[in-house]
């Protein structure tokens, strides 16, 4: 009987705790934003500003490869906003009715660049050097938007550097990473000789060297953003999306190396 009493007591305490949590909930509002890994620095700053401008609102981010975020949303992860590095992932969510058609807006452009460790261990000077045998190249996996863009760019380079250029370059790949920040990390540690990432990532890692990819061989990544259709925080979500698209939001994005959506 004693045991039963203590158990009842424990249960009552637990329910009481739940009760207080429920009554105090309306004052604090949480916004969960799923954003492409490349947006890590820019969105962290944007989120901080948004919280300051909206007291009582906390913005929580989940940064990962857009393809990983898309899968998590499909499997029922509670997201309010999705900011993707590629239209493909957004389209998949529209097909699955997680996002309403016509709602996503392109909010920035990004392009590709080669990054190298500061001391450039493989002595890479120009784009063509990517095909030098034996260099350690790290890409994002083909499923990751930036990995897909990189392979598209290599297709374009085939036109300039010879038809077997892409094959030679892909033979140098030592790892297919899960998101763009992993690629940056492997190059930053000096484990890889080079990697293909977004220009914004190079801005976020100023200690790295870069080799530019000329516009005609580059691929422009268009980032769409959209509220999730079943988000219970409709007004707040729209306010966040509007903030990202506002002059202030765009200025922050440009500061981090993204190009405005045009």
């Amino acid at each position, binding site marked *: 009987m004693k045991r039963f009493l203590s158990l009842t007591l424990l249960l009552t305490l637990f329910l009481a705790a739940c009760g207080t949590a429920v009554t105090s909930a309306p004052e604090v509002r949480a916004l969960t934003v799923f954003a492409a890994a490349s947006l890590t620095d820019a969105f962290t700053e944007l989120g901080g500003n948004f919280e300051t401008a909206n007291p009582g609102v906390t913005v929580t981010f989940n940064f990962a490869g857009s393809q990983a975020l898309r899968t998590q949303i499909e499997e029922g992860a509670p997201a309010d906003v999705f900011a993707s590095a590629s239209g493909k992932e957004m389209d998949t969510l529209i097909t699955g009715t997680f996002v309403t058609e016509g709602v996503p807006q392109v909010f920035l452009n990004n392009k590709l660049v080669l990054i190298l460790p500061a001391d450039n261990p493989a002595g890479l000077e120009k784009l063509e050097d990517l095909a030098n045998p034996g260099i*350690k190249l790290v890409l994002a*996996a083909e*499923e990751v938007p930036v990995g897909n863009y990189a392979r598209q760019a290599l297709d374009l380079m085939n036109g300039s550097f010879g038809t077997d250029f892409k094959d030679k370059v892909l033979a140098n790949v*030592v790892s297919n990473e899960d998101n763009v920040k992993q690629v940056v990390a*492997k190059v930053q*540690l*000096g*484990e890889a000789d080079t990697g293909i990432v977004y220009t914004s990532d190079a801005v976020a890692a100023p200690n790295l060297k870069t080799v530019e990819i000329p516009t005609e061989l580059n691929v422009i990544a268009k980032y769409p953003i959209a509220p999730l259709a079943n988000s219970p925080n409709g007004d707040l979500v729209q306010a966040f999306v509007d903030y990202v698209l506002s002059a202030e939001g765009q200025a922050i994005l440009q500061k981090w190396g993204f190009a405005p959506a045009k």
Partner: protein
Amino acid sequence: MSKLRNFIYRLLNKGYSGWIFIVPGTILLALFVLPLFAVLMRSINKDFFNYAFSEQAFKALRLSLLTSTITTISAVIFGTPLAYMLAKWKFRFKSWIELIIDLPIVLPPSVAGLALLIAFGRRGLFGSVLSIFGVSLPFTTAAVVLAQIFVASPLYVRSARVGFAQIDKQLEEAAHVEGANHWQLFYEVMIPLAGRALLSGAILTWTRALGEFGATILFAGNLEGVTQTMPMAIYLGFERNLGIALSLSVVLVIVSIFLLMLTKQLEKHDQD
């Protein structure tokens, strides 16, 4: 049948205090069973074998079996003497060495991967010495094995140490009286007597190595056929193609169950 009725009757009987054990215990058990059940249910469809026998799955399975086997063999070769010394010899700093060996078991694999990279990476503390000789570990199959040894071999050492420690001291003394040297004592007395502990330790290490993920993805990267093991293919398959991830998961669950049953069997024999 009357047993069951008896059981239900006891459960319904007012004041039956067994509930205090049954309810929380069942909740925890459900937490183990339900996810595995869900994976099994979702993976059962006409495409299961297509995924399970796809080229990517095959390469990942082959690499996983190869690396985990090398890991287990290495753990036995290098871990047995270590476990033997820890169990039978007296020396300074022994408890510190035991602590170091147990550390990888409780350490998050991501810490292990980072530590390996900082130590043996191309720019690493010791890796920079290796690179003078033209050896670079990251992104190689050797890195996969190294990560697995780091994470999984302590399980073998632990089990072997306990196995050796349980051997009766009188047997050792008898062997000494018979004039056996260190090696003879070890090989002819200790190994046969600790055999089951060694075997179950080796199987545990093998299972853990098969499942290694966190340290591998940080230290070895991900390349099909070279460093992409089963857990890695599952993780990436989750984003690309859930079917592949589910089918591979089921394969790993089945292999793990089989290996665990084997250890259980060995432990049972040990107690007899």
